[in-house]
């Protein structure tokens, strides 16, 4: 049986654990920061390597991948930062947590805010950042207050402000609240929002945050969970950290499970050490009595859906390092970054949504499409119009006014939004659910449309 492995959430749910700095320090908090701040330059092969470079190297070697959605290497992202521009470098923590199905950053912020602050200070120090922001979604008012308080406490202990831990390093962190728009989770939309503008995502190239980010200065945007992991990488050392998880999918990850399961919740596992089936059955208690599995969204609402019983041919390395192709049921897929991608979907924000056989799949997609139609920022025509058309077609279908061809109509729209036609990945995010739901459950979409056609045909005859 697969087991939880709590690294990030080690203390969060322990009885008596509180959010104040004394409790955090009693549990070893800020020790890693002190250790990092005491690091000295070393000489290697005749070159002097600064503590900052050493930390960045550790993060790279740890294999840490972003927990916000794309699973991009954190060390690599940091290495893209333009360190020669002469402009200040900013660090922004993405605490927008707005991908439907995801509720992991909420746990960290509300139950162990100092862990995030410590991770941020270490990350900021490593990247010569002196001003950092936490962009927190507007619907977390208490979370925002708790972070403000945590920052104040850290400042009183000289972990923030001027001359941190007796060194000459200065850092300020401020909390910035969003106001209910999903697109603020997209990193360049977030930066526009932080500049006090409408959160219209920026086109890349040229606006890669690492080069032209906040105030057109080099900027690092990392997810809450990612920044917490940085602390653990530095606490354990990259080598030890990389032993957690599986190769190229290191560390732990908080997986959120919601929908039709007996024990929905968040479960922290070593990446790849539990299969989707184990997560649903061993952790989330399995399906409700008498129900059968119908579909699984494996990585937040934007991830392509899996149909119960679907099989995939996945290339894996065997013990001798040879590549072998293995047929796998979706329930046997290890929950990691690479295998889910090989199966045509993604682990995205780490959120599994389970639907059983009582689910009307057309209505479920209608629900998601309404979300995307509401949240498109409206800059790009394919996304603005397409997301609305899809939601309108699905509303019609769900209200008994559809046609059999609506299934193909939906696919035609969805296939014409992504693939470089839009400024940001929201274009992909809104079409992937439609593409996958309709292709995998086409009979249900067509049946609903056909039923509506028959009904309206009957009414037409009656009226003649």
């Amino acid at each position, binding site marked *: 049986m697969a087991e939880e492995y709590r690294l990030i959430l080690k203390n969060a749910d322990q009885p008596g654990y509180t959010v104040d700095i004394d409790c955090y320090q009693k549990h070893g908090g800020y020790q890693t920061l002190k250790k990092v701040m005491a690091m000295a330059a070393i000489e290697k092969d005749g070159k002097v390597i600064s503590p900052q470079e050493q930390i960045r190297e550790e993060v790279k070697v740890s294999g840490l991948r972003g927990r916000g959605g794309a699973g991009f290497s954190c060390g690599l992202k940091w290495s893209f930062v333009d360190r020669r521009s002469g402009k200040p470098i900013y660090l922004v923590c993405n605490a927008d*947590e*707005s*991908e*439907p*199905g*995801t*509720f992991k*950053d*909420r746990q960290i912020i509300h139950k162990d805010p100092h862990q995030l602050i410590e991770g941020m200070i270490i990350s900021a120090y490593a990247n010569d950042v002196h*001003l950092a922001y936490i962009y927190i*979604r*507007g*619907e*977390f*008012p*208490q979370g925002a207050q708790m972070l403000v308080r945590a920052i104040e406490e850290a400042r009183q202990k000289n972990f923030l402000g001027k001359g941190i831990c007796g060194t000459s390093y200065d850092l*300020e962190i*401020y909390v*910035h*609240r*969003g*106001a*209910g*728009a*999903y697109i603020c989770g997209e990193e360049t939309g977030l930066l526009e*929002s*932080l*500049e*006090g*503008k*409408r*959160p219209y995502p920026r086109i890349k190239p040229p606006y890669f945050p690492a080069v032209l980010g906040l*105030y057109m200065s080099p900027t690092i945007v990392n997810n809450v969970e990612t920044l917490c992991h940085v602390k653990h990488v530095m606490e354990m050392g990259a080598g030890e950290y990389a032993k957690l998880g599986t190769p190229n999918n290191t560390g732990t990850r908080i997986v*959120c*499970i*919601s*929908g*039709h399961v007996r024990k*929905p*919740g*968040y479960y922290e596992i070593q990446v790849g050490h539990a299969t989707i089936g184990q997560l649903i059955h061993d952790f989330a208690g399995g399906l409700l009595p008498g129900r059968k599995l119908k579909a699984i969204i494996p990585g937040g*609402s934007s991830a392509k859906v899996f149909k119960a019983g679907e099989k995939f041919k996945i290339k894996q390395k065997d013990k001798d390092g040879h590549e072998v192709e293995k047929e796998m049921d979706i329930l046997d897929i290890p929950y990691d970054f690479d295998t889910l991608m090989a199966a045509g979907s993604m682990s995205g924000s780490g*959120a599994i*949504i389970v*639907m059983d056989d009582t*689910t009307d799949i057309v209505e*479920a997609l209608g*629900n*998601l499409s*309404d*979300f995307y139609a*509401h*949240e498109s920022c409206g800059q790009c025509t394919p996304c603005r119009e397409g997301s609305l058309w899809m939601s309108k077609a699905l509303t019609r279908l769900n209200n008994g006014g559809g046609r059999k061809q609506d299934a193909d109509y939906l696919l035609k729209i969805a296939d014409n939004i992504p693939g470089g036609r839009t400024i940001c990945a929201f274009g992909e995010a809104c079409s992937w659910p439609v593409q996958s739901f309709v292709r995998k459950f086409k009979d249900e979409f067509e049946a609903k449309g056909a039923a509506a056609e028959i009904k309206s045909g009957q009414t037409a005859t009656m009226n003649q």
Partner: protein
Amino acid sequence: MAHTEKDHIKVSAQLESEIDGLISHYPQKRSASLMILHRLQEEFGYLSQPAIEWTAMKLELQPINIYELVTFYPMFREHPVGKTVVRVCRTLSCALGGSHQLHSHLCRKLGLNPADKGPQNTPDGKFTIEFAECLASCGTPPVVMCNDDFYDNVSTDQADKLIKKYNQP
């Protein structure tokens, strides 16, 4: 346009100094706009034209620069709302967990239209009810916010209790 009492907002010295504090968090003033709008909405209940103009003036911007934020971000309101704004999560995990039935129940209880997803105010000015998108607590549906207070696993019984709790003059 004739100016009336309503064309002005009274920003107390204390509130203004708080807002000056917020502005000091950013190298560019404009960045403070969202934080200021939150603060003003908290104080006055909604963002009136004068509140928008005051913010623009404070940040040395044109009113349109602020107005376009108020019209974009779902949490900002241009019109007065009920004393308690009840937001029910509409999105998939909560929908699978009964949030739409809960929304209907609340609407019926308050004499509002269950089919209307947008904001609706009770005539007595006590409640506004609306759907919100995923509130990031999908494992404990249905999820509801009453103003800044958060409630999860909300049954119809609990919803009735919430209405009682917030039903204050």
